[in-house]
Structures are given as structure tokens and as C-alpha cells.
């Protein structure tokens, strides 16, 4: 019997209309867990390195995390993997909600889509019954609207729907896949889905998921719940409210937006408004949020309530989470009311709420500076909200200037020319980032920004505080109750970290400590993305319920295989290295690994080079960031060595790169 896993993948070839249930190798979970790990392996094996993201040959993989559908609290992530049209690298965006557990209950660990349907279709999976159904009546429909129509026509209110909107259909490079209160937004996976002619995937399951050691599992899960309750009663002192609790950032509940609105940049990631947050604004925004927030919503098997249904008069209701609350508002210099209205439109169209507002702010900046002109914006309204709506309407249809902007700021700038490149200033690896512009280089964030392959800082950072606490007593207080550290030394790094003076950024934490801190934070995310755990209870917040000490026990109890901390560290390294290998094979090198140039005012080129050298070395990569032969050997990734040698990416004798 298979535990945690169902042992089957569902393979769908949309070109041939073929559906197959394929048994998987039971050894894979012990090597890669599941989710991201096994997704990466499939992508590596089955999609050649030179395949275009929109080619029928490209795969779109919906992988459930290993622990999804088990009693493990908050294990509900679907990890969607493909090649990204925007970065051209591997995209692996996750969505919470209810979809992954439902797929497990239907009897599958993954849904693997290949080919391209000649006409728009949707997929209906009900346990063993799988149908490819016509979706021509859904063409151009919003993502939320689509889900509603499908649930009605199938008369299956309990089914879970992942759908694209018009943006995905028209291959907008930052199109999302929307699913109830969640979405897989980053990397343009919605566009890949659209390129396959797939409007939605609908799942309903009624099978069992098995557990190897039932009593032990339930006990460990109860401990997690106890700790969640403890943390709810003990918010962390000395940090902004948004960082004090657990779960995804509690944007739907928290009204105090001083931190975001005064620290993050407005417009095209340019303008800091340090005095923006006033009692009047707070009062107005609190009222705005409370009058449209219908209800808080959780994901499957999670006691938190990170999402909310937003119901604005005269608009269809939608669900929202996290920082998407503010992205439209801040990019357009409007207010929360306008931002929530624009987000409704963005959700129906199915666009990434990080990239889309920034792309539009970028366009308007080019217009102000005369690089784009009136003839690019015929009939555009005068007001900010009107302009954003006008632009978004054109982007998702790829009409006029919208066609250029639909490729995201990097590619749009290339096409526009005339110096537009300078305006696409907030990207990493061609992908729009959080609008953060800061003073002094932070070595930890420097490495995370450079080397992160999720290409999104919130998906790399987490368990180590973002900034030093001002007073030693505060730091002592913080480390007193910090069982999550994988090693006691991290407490010392934090205790000695000062806001000013010798032990402050950029030279403290030391290069060595920085490498270790970054490695720990990143490792937690790679584990989550393979188990399907919500990072909101694991890799993302300070002092989460899940950590290096209880995760191996839980995975062991549920799956029945032996796993200790060392073993889990190794799996995480293997998965992390395999993702890198996929990207190296697609051409990524050291030169691509840099933060947005203006992310910090004060940069230290020499130190930065040293940091990157040290981190590559720490990870077992060579100077170009390519995993070394011995690293790959140690991780049983011999098939990667073989490929790298063949391509000349690695040389037989030493780790020479091309």
C-alpha cells in the first residue's frame, strides 16, 4: 500500500485527446518527497532544454505536495510547474486552497498536461472518470465566473476548479491560474495553460488517503495545532503587526498598513511616501475594507483565515489574500477602494497581482516621460483608476499597446526601445519584484535576491528576522523561546546583530553566517514546496509551528519511511540542486543572478562578489553557479552529471563551465 501518496499520476495529452492513469515509482518519494521535487524531475526528464514554453511539447504539471490530503495541518499546496514564458526558466508557482487535496482524494498525485487542444476545453476529473469537455462557451469569461458556470453545469458544488481568465487565453506573460481563494500567479503559468487550449481543470474525489503510522501522526498533528494556538496568544514583540503572527500575512484582517505604505515604493516602484499613513487614512481604509469584506476564508485543513471574500456593490464577488490588497492601490497612486475594485477585475482576467499593476505603472511612466506617446494610448481616460482599467482591458486582449505590455516590463522595454529598459528597473531574471527600494545593502537579502530561483523574495525569506532588534534585551527575549532554529549558532548570529556599528549590515552577519542563514531559510521553502505545506505555517513567518525538528518526524509517521533531520536536509538540497540544474540547462548563469540595480542605494561590489563566491562554494556550485560534479554525485543526481558532461556544461576533469 502507498502512504500519503496515491501512487498514480494522471497524464493527459490534449493534442490526441488521450487520458492515462500511470502508476508511479514508489522510491521517488524517499528521494524527492513529492510536489516540487518530483515535478522538477519530470520536467528534467521529459521536456528538452530548448523547448519553447508555448510549445505543445512543454508540460504543465499540477503536482500535489506529498502531505496534501493527509491530516497534516495546512498541507494543501498545488505546485504548478512548467517553463515560464517570461523568465524562460523553470516556473514553479504554488496555490493554496482546496485543489490539491481534492486531486489526492480523486486518486492522483499529479496531473500532467501535454500537447495542445485544437479548441478551448476544460478537464473534468471525478475519481476514475476523466472527461475533456468543450469550453467554447467559456471563451473570454473571467476566471471566477468560469468556475461558477462550470460548477453549475456539472451540478457539482463541491468540485474544485482551477481556471484561467482572458489573460491566460491570450498568453499574457504574467497570467495566473485562479482557484477559489488562491492562485498560482508567478511566472506566467496561466499563459502556458492558455497555450494548451485549457480553460479549467475541475476535480472531485471520494477516495481514501492512507497513513502509515496513524496514532503517531495524529499526535504530531495535535502538537502542531497546540503550537498554533500558543503562537496566536503570543504574537512576536518588536516587529510590525504584519510580521508578529503566523499564517500568510494577515492582510485581510490587519488595518494598520503603515509598514507597507511607507516602506514600499508607489507607482513604478519609485516613490517612497514616508508620511503617507495618517489617522485619517487609517480611518478611511479601515472603513473601506470593512464595508466590502464579506467573510474570512481559509485553505483546506487550516485554522487560519488568510483570505477573504470581497463583495463590492455592482461587481461580482471575488476572493483575495495577502499583499494583493495594496498592489493596485500603490502602483496607481489611488486609494484602497479603487485598489479593491481593480483587483476584482485583475482576478477575473487572471493576472498576477504583483506584476500586472507594475507593468501598468511602467507604461504610464513611459508616457509621462514621452517615450510612449498619445498615439499609443488612444482614448485613455484621465484619472488613474480609469487609466489602469483601460490598460488592463487592452493587455489581456493583447490589443494595441496592450500587446507589448502583455509580455511584462522586461520584454516590453526591449520592444519599445528608446531607453525604455531603464524603466523596467525592478526585475530579477526578467520578472517583476516587490516594489522595495532601500538604503544599505543587506547581505542576507542580497544572496536571496541573487540566487533565488522562485524569483520572488517572499518565497525565499522567512524564519530569520528581517532586521536586527534595536536592543540586546529584546534580542535576548526573542531567542529565549526559539526552538525552531536548526542549530544554536543562529541564536548567536541574531543576538550579535546590531542596527548600527561594527556588527551591522552590510558586514554583519559575516559572509559565513550569511550563507548559513540564507541556506536555512531557502531550505524550509524547498521542503514546503515538496510536502505541499503552506509556508505561512512553516518557512515564511518567525517561529512557525513547523520546523526542522518536527518535520522529519511527521513525514516519517505519515509515509512510513525512515527520515531524520540529516535526511531531510539532503532531500531539500537534492530538490534545490535539481531545480538549479533545470535552469542551468536552460542557460542561467552567474551573470543572471543579481538584484534590481536600484534595490539598495548603497552597494558594495567587492563584498557582493565575495558573498556570491562564498555562497556558491557553500552550496557546492562552481564560480558560474553550476552544481559541481561531486555535489551532484553526493545527491545521487548522476543523470544530471551525464547530461552536463554531454553538453559541455561541466568538463570531465574539473568543474569547468562553458
Amino acid at each position: 500500500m502507498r502512504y500519503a501518496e496515491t501512487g498514480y499520476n494522471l497524464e493527459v495529452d490534449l493534442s490526441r485527446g488521450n487520458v492515462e492513469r500511470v502508476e508511479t515509482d514508489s522510491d521517488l518519494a524517499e528521494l524527492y518527497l513529492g510536489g516540487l521535487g518530483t515535478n522538477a524531475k519530470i520536467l528534467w526528464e521529459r521536456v528538452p532544454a530548448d523547448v519553447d514554453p508555448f510549445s505543445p511539447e512543454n508540460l504543465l504539471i499540477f503536482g500535489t505536495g506529498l502531505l496534501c490530503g493527509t491530516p497534516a495541518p495546512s498541507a494543501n499546496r498545488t505546485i504548478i510547474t512548467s517553463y515560464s514564458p517570461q523568465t524562460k526558466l523553470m516556473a514553479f508557482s504554488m496555490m493554496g486552497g482546496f485543489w490539491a487535496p481534492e486531486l489526492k482524494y480523486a486518486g492522483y498525485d499529479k496531473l500532467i498536461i501535454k500537447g495542445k487542444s485544437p479548441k478551448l476545453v476544460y478537464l473534468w476529473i471525478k475519481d476514475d472518470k476523466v472527461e475533456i469537455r468543450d469550453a467554447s462557451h467559456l471563451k473570454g469569461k473571467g476566471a471566477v465566473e468560469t468556475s461558477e458556470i462550470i460548477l453549475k453545469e456539472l451540478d457539482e458544488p463541491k468540485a474544485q476548479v482551477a481556471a484561467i481568465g482572458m489573460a491566460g487565453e491570450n498568453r499574457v506573460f504574467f497570467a495566473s491560474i485562479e482557484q477559489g481563494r488562491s492562485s498560482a500567479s508567478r511566472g506566467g503559468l496561466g499563459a502556458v495553460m492558455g497555450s494548451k487550449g485549457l480553460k479549467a481543470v475541475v476535480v472531485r474525489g471520494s477516495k481514501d488517503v492512507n497513513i502509515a503510522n496513524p496514532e503517531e501522526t495524529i499526535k504530531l498533528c495535535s502538537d502542531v495545532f497546540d503550537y498554533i494556538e500558543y503562537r496566536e496568544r503570543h504574537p512576536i514583540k518588536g516587529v510590525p503587526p504584519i510580521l508578529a503572527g503566523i499564517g500568510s500575512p494577515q492582510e485581510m484582517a490587519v488595518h494598520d498598513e503603515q509598514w507597507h505604505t511607507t516602506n514600499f515604493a508607489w507607482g513604478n516602484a519609485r516613490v517612497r511616501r514616508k508620511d503617507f499613513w495618517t489617522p485619517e487614512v487609517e480611518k478611511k481604509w479601515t472603513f473601506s475594507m470593512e464595508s466590502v469584506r464579506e467573510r474570512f476564508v481559509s485553505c483546506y485543513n487550516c485554522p487560519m483565515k488568510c483570505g477573504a471574500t470581497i463583495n463590492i456593490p455592482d461587481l461580482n464577488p471575488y476572493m483575495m489574500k495577502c499583499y494583493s490588497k495594496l498592489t493596485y492601490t500603490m502602483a496607481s497612486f489611488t486609494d484602497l477602494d479603487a485598489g479593491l475594485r481593480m483587483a476584482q477585475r485583475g482576478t477575473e482576467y487572471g493576472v498576477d497581482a504583483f506584476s500586472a499593476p507594475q507593468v501598468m505603472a511602467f507604461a504610464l511612466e513611459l508616457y509621462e516621460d514621452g517615450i510612449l506617446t498619445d498615439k499609443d494610448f488612444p482614448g485613455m481616460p484621465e484619472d488613474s483608476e480609469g487609466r489602469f482599467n483601460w490598460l488592463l482591458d487592452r493587455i489581456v486582449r493583447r490589443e494595441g499597446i496592450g500587446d507589448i505590455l502583455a509580455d511584462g516590463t522586461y520584454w516590453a522595454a526591449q520592444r519599445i526601445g528608446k531607453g525604455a529598459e531603464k524603466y523596467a528597473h525592478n526585475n530579477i531574471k526578467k520578472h517583476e519584484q516587490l516594489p522595495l527600494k532601500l538604503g544599505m545593502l543587506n547581505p542576507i537579502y542580497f544572496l536571496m535576491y541573487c540566487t533565488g530561483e522562485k524569483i520572488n523574495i517572499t518565497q525565499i525569506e522567512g524564519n530569520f528576522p528581517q532586521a536586527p532588534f534595536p536592543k540586546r534585551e529584546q534580542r535576548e527575549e526573542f531567542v529565549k523561546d526559539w526552538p525552531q532554529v536548526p542549530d544554536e549558532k543562529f541564536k548567536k548570529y541574531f543576538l550579535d546583530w546590531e542596527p548600527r556599528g561594527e556588527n551591522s549590515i552590510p558586514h554583519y552577519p559575516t559572509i559565513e553566517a550569511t550563507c548559513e542563514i540564507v541556506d536555512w531559510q531557502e531550505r524550509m521553502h524547498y521542503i514546503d514546496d515538496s510536502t505541499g505545506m503552506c509556508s505561512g505555517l512553516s518557512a515564511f513567518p518567525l517561529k512557525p509551528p513547523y520546523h526542522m525538528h518536527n518535520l522529519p518526524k511527521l513525514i516519517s509517521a505519515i509515509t512510513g519511511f525512515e527520515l531524520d533531520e540529516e535526511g531531510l536536509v539532503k532531500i531539500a538540497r537534492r530538490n534545490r540542486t535539481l531545480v538549479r540544474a533545470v535552469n542551468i540547462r536552460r542557460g542561467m548563469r552567474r551573470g543572471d543572478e543579481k538584484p534590481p540595480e536600484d534595490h539598495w542605494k548603497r552597494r558594495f561590489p567587492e563584498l557582493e562578489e565575495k558573498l556570491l563566491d562564498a555562497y556558491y562554494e557553500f552550496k557546492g556550485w562552481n564560480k558560474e553557479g553550476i552544481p559541481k560534479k561531486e555535489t551532484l554525485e553526493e545527491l545521487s543526481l548522476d543523470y544530471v552529471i551525464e547530461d552536463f558532461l554531454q553538453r559541455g556544461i561541466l568538463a570531465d576533469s574539473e568543474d569547468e563551465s562553458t
Partner: protein
Amino acid sequence: MTAKKKTKIIKTIKVDVDLCNGCRTCELICSAFHAVPRYSSNNPERSRIRVIRDPLRGVFIPVYAGQYTPAECTGRDKYIIDGKEYDECAFCRASCPSRGLFKEPDSGLPLKCDMCESDPSLAEPMCVQWCLPDALTYEEREVEVEDEAENEQEDVEIGLESLADKYGWQKILDTVARMSKKD
């Protein structure tokens, strides 16, 4: 039947719909608790509590499985509360032929909440223990009641009745006859 009075403990689960976040943890743990061996698997479809979820309309209602009924009601109810319209029969707890709710997915046998009856008994039913948002809370109170037929007997009868509805009495009798011969 005797009409003797005796005291009985009424077990109540109070459902505060406003606190429910629609997470379905209660479904998961109920099905795990009733798996054999206990917790060895889970499948919300086997749960004796089901959350009616329509998040876009802000609707989350946990409903407990009540009695099995062989025939559907002749009339239907539809509620509107606070301007929200709920599905037909939304609040009904019956395992009823008109819908798939509260039936074992493979056999179609009716499911009924048994308050996690077990030996030793639990401090609180599992769904209550695992509902951290406190939408479900447990209460016990004593009442005087007329002596009832044994619950177990009642369960057997309900199970049989539903089997008979599905397969006909003759088939049940034949099967029982065949099975008892094997022993």
C-alpha cells in the same frame, strides 16, 4: 416497552456558523477517526459532518449527519438568512435518497454522527477538538427521559432498512442466509 424514567446525558455540539472558516478539518478528522484501524486513512466523503461551502457568497455551514430516511420529503425548504439564499435542503441532516450527502462513497450506506462514541470515551468529539476556530463546541447536559430501546438495535435496523431499500428484502435475506452458513 416500559415507560420507566431514567437520566440520560444529552451530548450537544453547538455550531457557531459565524466562526467557521470553511476549512473542512472537521470532515477530515471525522473520517480519519472512523477509519479502521483508527486514523489509518481519511476521506472527507466518509465524514459524518459536512461543511456546506459557498465562499463567494460567504456561506460556510457545518451540518451533522442525522437519521437515515428511505424516502425524500414531499416538500422542500429554502432559507434566506441575512439576504443570503441557501440551497434547497441545505440545513437538513438526513441521509436521504435525494442527495449524495452522508453516504459511504462505495457502498452507499448511510452515515450518521455517533458523537465519536468510543471506549475509552473521548473528552470531546474529534471534530470539536480539531476545530481551532471554535465554530464547534461541545456541551453535555443531563435530562430525564423515558427508557429507550437500545441504540445498537436501532443502528442495526437502520442499516438493514437502507440495504433493503437498495437491494430489496429478498436479496438481504438470501445474503444473510448464505453468510450464516459460512460461519
